[in-house]
């Protein structure tokens, strides 16, 4: 592999993952006879595996880029990952999620991380089936689950998972909890309701055409009666099964003395059905079975789409799946025993290998290492821990093996405390007043009042017709347009935003985004990428950049520290005689020359000089020094980089009148750097999850309407407590399930689109509601005076509904955002 710097273009994209290829790097993979650029050894290895399995068609069909770059530098998996996968061969762990079908045929469901399009499914299925011993593999694109059936004597589960890893995905065991199984049932039930309403609607509509035509040109009585009875038969299951959620919700709301939209909907559906059934039985009056079923069907579509969006977020796996490990290595009588993490008890001693998640809260009794606590605190650099220090379950051990004595398990752990904080935050979450519900309560009151007055007046004038006229008032004012006004607009806007990378999971988001006054951001992982990357290379000798980067990468290849990951892209060589000094740096041989990389004091000691941080080219970010035994070679500046486009997005948001604040658990100098670069004036640093929640609640008490955007475990309570919360796509599952919306692509620019579209949505909802009210104001007096024939009412209702739906469809396009200069 040559390493000339001249042939580099700054904007070359990795053919596999689509990320920019860093300068000074040249990896290529041969795909269909063309050499394609690759950004790192991981992508190269994946691409070569795909091609060598004859699956290069993947590149032809895929849409979008793969998101997960595996930690691969050759055909072999890193030993840490191999060890982890080996755990899954253990029978006690397999009993949770593996089913034994026959003697040696087993089946398991895995959640696959990294699936982006149908081509991924195709690639996974074909790659898996090509492995000897795998009988069947089917991958579901919607919920990212793979069902795999294999012969246990021919292939182990760990090698299946390794095969998945080799083509750039990650598999985790899927074992649904109770709540997930209930969601699955709820989803199927909702879909059955929708389907039944749709089928019945079509059938009844056909027969209603006959009745309408009959009303205009005459129809034999016995046929009319017969058609009415058949319509009644078909409409009954719709009322009893499909429309049931409306009735139960309406009952609940009435008991809570609160008139929501479900109340008029139930009155309209129930009233129209009962009136039609009475009319059919007594062979008088008019029937409205078509309206009953059509109305139910349309409303159910909206509800179904909303529910689907809600289920789509973090439910792919168990919420805490990636956080608390399934297993722990317990040390007893000098032996290592692998046990499920749930079986740990206080005072057990466990061994945590580097790269593994700590199974429960504990105290270090042997060893020293650094621990990545970013999920809990937002601090992006690992913290050094030695004998006697406390560590928290769910954080990750980075460098050396540790022995812990467990101090807290289960509900006593810090992580569970955060989850409990979350429940309380959700209860205290300020309610969003929905316009539709407010209008509905007035509307229901007005309609019921009018109906009573109309029936009283007609009772005095013409007692025989009073019943039918009162009914026609109730049916004509059937709040079709009114109840469709909001859901259609919300469904259209939600769909548009989803296509553009913002997944809305709670109904109130569009309303509360439009009225928001403050946007509060978390720092690490939200405004910034959340991992270190190389910002600058400053050369001190006449060696070229490519060479020093390769040396640095060779040294860092042996470390699990986040700093090392920043160099992984440049790795071509390997180093030997490695020696790591905790919290200081690394020493090793590359091509038989000794180098040191790390803190300036540590590295410069090798060449008998004394350099400190003051000698670094500037004081922004974290500087590392690379030295050989003669001279310092280069300074590297590492930084947690701010996400692309963040600065501009914040400027636009400020121009839209929103106040921007930053709320972070991080306490380092990086906080001020980020705030300065993004021009954020209000910054709260070093806040614990509890303090974060308290801060937001204080703001909300003062009348602010807060949108909180975050990603970590430490953000979960505040996400739950904020009026509107948005989680980044890279956030932990638990954060995603508790947020009201998820920025799938983690592109902060999408926020502007969301705010603009939500404001337009509010505008369109108002238009729709005004139209619906206007229609009712015209129709009501006519119906009250007995002028409205049923077909006129039907046409009126359909046209007004169509206008409302058409108006809502204007929300399928994003509002243009004007860039700030």
């Amino acid at each position: 592999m040559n390493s000339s710097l001249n042939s580099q273009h700054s904007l070359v994209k990795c053919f596999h993952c689509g990320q920019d290829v860093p300068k000074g790097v040249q990896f290529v993979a041969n795909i269909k006879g063309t050499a394609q650029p690759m950004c790192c050894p991981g992508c190269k290895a994946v691409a070569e595996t795909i091609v060598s399995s004859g699956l290069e068609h993947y590149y032809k069909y895929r849409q979008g880029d793969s998101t997960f770059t595996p930690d691969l530098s050759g055909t072999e998996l890193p030993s840490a990952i191999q060890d982890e996968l080996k755990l899954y061969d253990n029978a006690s762990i397999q009993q949770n999620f593996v089913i034994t079908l026959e003697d040696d045929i087993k089946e398991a469901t895995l959640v696959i991380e990294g699936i982006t399009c149908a081509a991924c499914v195709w690639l996974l299925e074909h790659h898996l089936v090509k492995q000897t011993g795998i009988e069947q593999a089917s991958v579901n694109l919607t919920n990212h689950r793979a069902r795999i059936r294999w012969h246990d004597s021919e292939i182990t589960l760990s090698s299946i998972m390794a095969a998945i890893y080799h083509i750039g995905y990650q598999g985790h065991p899927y074992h649904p909890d109770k709540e997930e199984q209930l969601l699955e049932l709820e989803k199927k039930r909702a879909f059955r309701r929708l389907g039944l309403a749709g089928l019945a609607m079509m059938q009844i509509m056909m027969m209603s055409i006959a009745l309408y035509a009959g009303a205009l040109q005459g129809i034999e009585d016995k046929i009319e009666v017969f058609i009415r009875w058949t319509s009644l038969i078909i409409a009954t299951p719709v009322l009893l099964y499909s429309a049931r959620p409306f009735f139960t919700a309406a009952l609940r709301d009435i008991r809570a003395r609160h008139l929501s939209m479900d109340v008029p909907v139930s009155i309209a559906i129930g009233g129209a059905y009962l009136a039609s059934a009475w009319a059919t039985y007594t062979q008088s009056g008019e029937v409205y079975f078509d309206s009953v079923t059509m109305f139910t069907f349309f409303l159910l579509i909206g509800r179904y789409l909303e529910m689907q969006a809600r289920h789509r977020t973090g439910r792919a796996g168990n919420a805490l799946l990636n956080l608390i490990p399934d297993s722990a290595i317990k040390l007893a009588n000098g032996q290592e025993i692998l046990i499920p993490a749930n079986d740990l008890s206080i005072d057990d001693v466990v061994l945590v290998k580097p790269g593994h998640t700590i199974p429960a809260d504990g105290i270090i009794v042997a060893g020293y290492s650094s621990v990545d606590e970013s999920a809990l605190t937002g601090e992006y650099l690992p913290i050094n821990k030695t004998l006697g220090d406390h560590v928290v379950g769910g954080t990750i051990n980075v460098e050396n093996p540790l022995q812990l004595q467990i101090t807290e398990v289960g509900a006593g752990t810090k992580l569970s405390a955060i989850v409990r904080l979350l429940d309380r935050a959700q209860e205290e979450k300020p309610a969003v007043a929905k316009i539709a519900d407010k209008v509905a309560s007035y509307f229901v009151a007005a309609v019921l009042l009018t109906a009573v007055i109309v029936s009283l007046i007609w009772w005095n004038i013409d007692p025989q017709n009073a019943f039918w006229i009162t009914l026609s008032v109730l049916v004509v004012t059937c709040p079709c347009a009114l109840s469709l006004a909001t859901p259609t607009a919300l469904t259209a806007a939600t769909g548009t935003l989803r296509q553009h990378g913002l997944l809305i999971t709670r109904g109130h988001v569009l309303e509360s985004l439009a009225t928001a006054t403050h946007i509060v951001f978390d720092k690490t992982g939200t405004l910034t990428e959340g991992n270190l990357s190389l910002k600058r290379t400053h050369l001190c000798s006449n060696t070229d950049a490519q060479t020093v980067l390769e040396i640095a990468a060779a040294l860092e290849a042996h470390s699990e520290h986040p700093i090392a990951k920043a160099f992984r892209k440049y790795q071509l060589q390997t180093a030997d005689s490695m020696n790591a000094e905790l919290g200081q740096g690394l020493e090793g041989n590359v091509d038989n020359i000794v180098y040191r990389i790390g803190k300036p004091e540590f590295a410069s000691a090798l060449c008998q000089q004394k350099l400190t941080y003051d000698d670094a080219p500037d004081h922004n970010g974290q500087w590392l020094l690379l030295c050989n035994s003669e001279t310092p070679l280069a300074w590297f500046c590492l930084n947690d980089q701010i996400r692309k486009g963040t600065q501009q997005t914040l400027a636009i948001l400020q121009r839209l009148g929103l106040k921007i604040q930053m709320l972070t658990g991080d306490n380092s100098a990086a906080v001020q750097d980020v705030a300065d670069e993004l021009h954020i004036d209000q910054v709260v640093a070093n806040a614990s999850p509890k303090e974060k929640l308290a801060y937001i609640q204080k703001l909300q008490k003062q009348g602010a309407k807060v949108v909180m955007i975050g990603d970590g475990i430490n953000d979960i309570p505040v996400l739950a407590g904020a009026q509107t919360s948005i989680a980044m796509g890279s956030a932990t599952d638990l954060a995603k399930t508790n947020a009201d919306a998820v920025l799938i692509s983690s592109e902060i620019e999408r926020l502007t689109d969301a705010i603009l579209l939500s404001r337009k949505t509010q505008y369109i909802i108002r238009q729709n509601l005004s139209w619906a009210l206007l229609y009712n104001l015209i129709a009501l007096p006519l119906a009250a005076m007995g002028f409205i024939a049923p077909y006129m009412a039907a046409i009126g209702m359909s046209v007004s509904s169509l206008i409302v739906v058409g108006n809502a469809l204007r929300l399928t396009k994003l509002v243009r955002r004007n860039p700030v200069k």
Partner: protein
Amino acid sequence: MEILFILIPIAIILLGFAIWAFFWSVNTGQYDDLESPAHSILFDDDEDMIPDDAKQGKKNSSRD
């Protein structure tokens, strides 16, 4: 129009059958993944199954 008295009940029976089929398909998971089957039919991974003499001019493969 007496035929309607037979045809409409038949329609209702057919509707009942359609609803039963729909419920069955939902319950057995036919609707769990609505996205990938639509795409997978387009992936032509069946090249080795096409007989050699039926292959269309391999040389001018301008498909990608």
